[in-house]
């Protein structure tokens, strides 16, 4: 009897959905990790290749922080057999930044299977980062089997509901949202009425010139609903943010970098520190994309966000791991 494995199936050219042409397109596209700068509330992005050529004062601000995402600790399949190594590489990237970040945001899927030892490993690896201040939101892989109970116990201190929370840093207001629980058949990510109510109240006292950063695991914009890459009640959440001059939304989940500007809101999705996923619709499913080992780290990444208070600028730097 033949036991079919994912690895074997990926070796069949018709089964991974990625032909050579598509694969090269992914490579070219993934190579364009981006640096984004908001000036006067407007976000500009620069291909990552240009960041190395930038002077450190261009990256300097009153506040800089890093976003990492989708570590999937515990994943051991062919698409990325060394998620410990790639998270370590991400931490090394963080520690090598010309400006030490004030804190780290992890936008979920810390673990692959919500196992205690997976969370422990990530916590341990992050201890070697230059900052010990880490803020989390859960991914769907972090709340398996227990509706997020373990996640809350580990990371939910001071949070509301299923783990949503907000904080202020150097005049920037941050809100971490949870959109991976109570998902409905056929639906997308979900914030739910309780969280929406909280968000509305959370931002109503802020002046409209306050820069807002919202972070959540699943995209808060419709990246590709066919694959569930969106959040069904995100429009309601974003409506509370319309009066602000500068709103940045940071997400993970789709294991690739994407950006979009809509009115006053700039959306970013971060790469994974573990394994890449295909471009929307370019594979039969959003499962892990298997790429040659020497190319893998070019598709994984860290996002460095740099807010310059005096100049009203917020920079988002997406860098890959090599």
């Amino acid at each position, binding site marked *: 009897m033949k036991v*079919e494995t994912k690895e074997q199936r990926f070796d069949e050219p018709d089964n991974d959905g990625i032909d050579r042409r598509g694969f090269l397109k992914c490579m070219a596209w993934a190579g364009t990790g981006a640096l984004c700068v908001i000036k006067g509330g407007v976000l500009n992005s620069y291909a990552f290749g240009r960041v190395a050529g930038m002077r450190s004062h261009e990256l300097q601000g009153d506040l800089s922080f890093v976003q990492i995402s989708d570590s999937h600790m515990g994943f051991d399949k062919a698409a990325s057999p060394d998620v410990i190594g790639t998270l370590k590489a991400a931490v090394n990237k963080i520690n090598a930044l010309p400006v030490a970040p004030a804190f780290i945001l992890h936008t979920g899927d810390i673990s692959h*299977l919500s196992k205690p030892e997976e969370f422990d490993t990530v916590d341990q690896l992050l201890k070697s980062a230059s900052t010990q201040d880490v803020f989390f939101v859960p991914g769907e892989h972090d709340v398996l089997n227990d509706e997020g109970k373990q996640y809350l116990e580990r990371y939910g201190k001071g949070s509301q509901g299923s783990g949503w929370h907000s904080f202020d840093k150097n005049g920037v207001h941050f809100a971490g949202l949870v959109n991976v629980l109570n998902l*409905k058949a056929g639906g997308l990510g979900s914030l739910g009425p309780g969280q929406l109510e909280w968000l509305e109240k959370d931002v109503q006292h802020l002046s409209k010139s306050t820069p807002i950063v919202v972070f959540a695991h699943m995209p808060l914009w419709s990246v590709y609903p066919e694959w569930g890459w969106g959040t069904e009640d995100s429009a309601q959440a974003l409506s509370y943010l319309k009066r602000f001059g500068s709103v940045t939304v940071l997400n993970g989940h789709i294991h690739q970098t994407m950006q979009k500007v809509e009115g006053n809101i700039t959306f970013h999705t971060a790469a994974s520190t573990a394994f890449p996923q295909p471009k929307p619709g370019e594979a039969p*499913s959003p499962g892990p994309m298997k790429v040659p080992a020497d190319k893998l780290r070019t598709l994984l990444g860290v996002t460095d966000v740099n807010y310059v208070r005096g100049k009203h600028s917020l920079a988002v730097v997406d860098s890959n791991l090599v």
Partner: protein
Amino acid sequence: MMKTRARMSGVAILLAVLTAGPMPNILAATPPANSSSEVAVKIDNFSFSPATITVPAGTTVRWTNRDDIPHTVVSDDKVFKSKALDTDEAFTYTFTKPGTYGYFCSIHPKMIAKVVVQ
């Protein structure tokens, strides 16, 4: 050794049953007379396959995850609910009452399918 062989032959019989006809759903609709029959649904590429199966009451359905990513099997009205199934893990549920049971993956809710029990 005996135990392993016995289990392997059981799997072989099941596979033979499942691959005997032209269409999976037709197969599922005509299981062997044995009342403790089992029908397999594969979870692969973020979908349940076959997406619809029709089985007589008393049938056990076995869902096996062939993806690199965990999935769950959760009925719309919470009649059955699996834990997260890692790669190659399986979940079974025996349908005793006739009816249509819609279900989905609670981690990837775009994955929807149904079991029709006659």
